[in-house]
């Protein structure tokens, strides 16, 4: 069964249509990349999936129930594009607060910090961290309480290559354990880390394929070129 099933989703923001009758599904227990240029509607789609976006039409079904249903609040982890962290608290205080809100055990704090490679940063004030460190604290809060679905909005942006590689390895390990991940990025070179790709352009789905399938279909070896080929064909 698909972890996320979307049919005819329509979203307007600021009076303009952003998503126009989008239909797609996201496979359970895999890493799905949501790729597209900035402004293509990735964040809007993710907001609709976690149930914080007012939608104009269509249905969004997450883990078998309508998006935003109260029972999903413990089962879905969401990382906003801008880090949602209290800057005047330490890293550990931030995580302990979210753990209590989520009803997650205290031990999950250390596990989440290890996963984002921030062990040893517990007592640092969040406001004193670099942008990349801050977004990893935000990511760690979503890992608390072992959610079944992780919706991550550009979690690897601004991170150095080593950290990016480690995070993608961590995502793959989570998928191995059965967690479903939907990860957005506007950088195509992240696409190869994903089991499946959803390519968004101007709020429309231009591809729903595996990285290999995408290469084959476009006859391009480079995913950047493959994406450009698709965008130009559909334009």
């Amino acid at each position: 069964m698909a972890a996320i099933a979307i049919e005819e989703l329509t979203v307007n923001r600021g009076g303009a249509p952003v998503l126009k009758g989008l239909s797609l599904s996201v496979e359970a227990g895999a890493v799905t990349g949501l790729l597209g240029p900035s402004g293509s509607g990735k964040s809007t789609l993710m907001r609709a999936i976690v149930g914080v976006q007012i939608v104009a039409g269509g249905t969004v079904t997450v883990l078998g129930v309508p998006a935003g249903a109260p029972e999903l609040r413990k089962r879905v982890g969401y990382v906003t594009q801008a880090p949602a962290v209290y800057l005047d608290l330490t890293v550990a205080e931030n995580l302990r607060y979210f753990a209590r809100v989520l009803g997650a055990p205290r031990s999950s704090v250390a596990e989440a910090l290890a996963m984002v490679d921030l062990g040893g940063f517990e007592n640092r004030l969040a406001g004193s961290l670099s942008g990349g460190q801050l977004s990893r604290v935000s990511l760690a809060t979503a890992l608390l309480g072992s959610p079944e679905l992780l919706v991550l909005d550009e979690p690897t942006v601004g991170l150095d290559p080593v950290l990016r590689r480690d995070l993608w390895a961590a995502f793959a390990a989570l998928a191995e354990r059965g967690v479903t991940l939907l990860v957005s990025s506007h950088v195509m070179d992240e696409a190869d880390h994903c089991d499946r790709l959803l390519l968004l352009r101007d709020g429309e789905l231009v591809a729903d394929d595996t990285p290999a399938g995408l290469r084959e279909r476009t006859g391009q070896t480079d995913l950047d070129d493959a994406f450009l080929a698709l965008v130009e064909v559909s334009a």
Partner: protein
Amino acid sequence: MNASVALATAERVLRQLRRDPRTLALVLLVPPLLLTLFRYVFDGSQLTFNRVGGPLVGIFPFTMMFVVTSIAMLRERTSGTLERLMTTPLGKLDLLLGYALAFAVVAVAQACIACGVAFSLLGLNVNGSIAVVIGLAVINAVLGMATGLFTSAFARSEFQAVQFLPAVVFPQILLCGLIAPRAHMTHVLYVASFVLPLTWAYDALAHAVAGTGDAKIVRDALILLGVIVAALSLGATTLRRRTG
């Protein structure tokens, strides 16, 4: 509604305040300093100081909590933490009660310090019970908090939020009876003063200071509690899980 989440929120808000010692110092020290100022402005007239200073002890918390809460809540909205919290099991009521609890703790400290200075150093004299004055100060703090929480929904920036102080609080201070007896106002203002929460807060404090009318204090306190519940409920409706 989940008591553990509300408590966690209260603890978190207090931790944030503790990280900002300057704000904390201002909240705790400005009221006694202003009271001292009043004491020497009314140097020749201890009676006037008693009449104005006593109720002021209970009105400061209202003003300060109004500002502190509206800014804190605005930050929660603009920093993305509110959007994040709204995807968690946290109930709106848990969040509001957490804030209420945290600021009530600060209000008790604020009122105790202000009363301590006023009664021991400034010679403020009340016929009624000091404990009642402190209790009313705490109710007023929670009232200020609830009002600030609600009005913060209408501010897009901290500049706007701060402007709600003169817009929402100053008229109430003018009309509540502290500056001039309400009976001396033009009829329209006199009638308007009945629907302003601070009128009842002042009425209760004036009775507590004068040591008259316990029944009226209870009535006023009940009105204030009603307003608090209404403001918190209105505040809850401004916390939206879904936004555009």
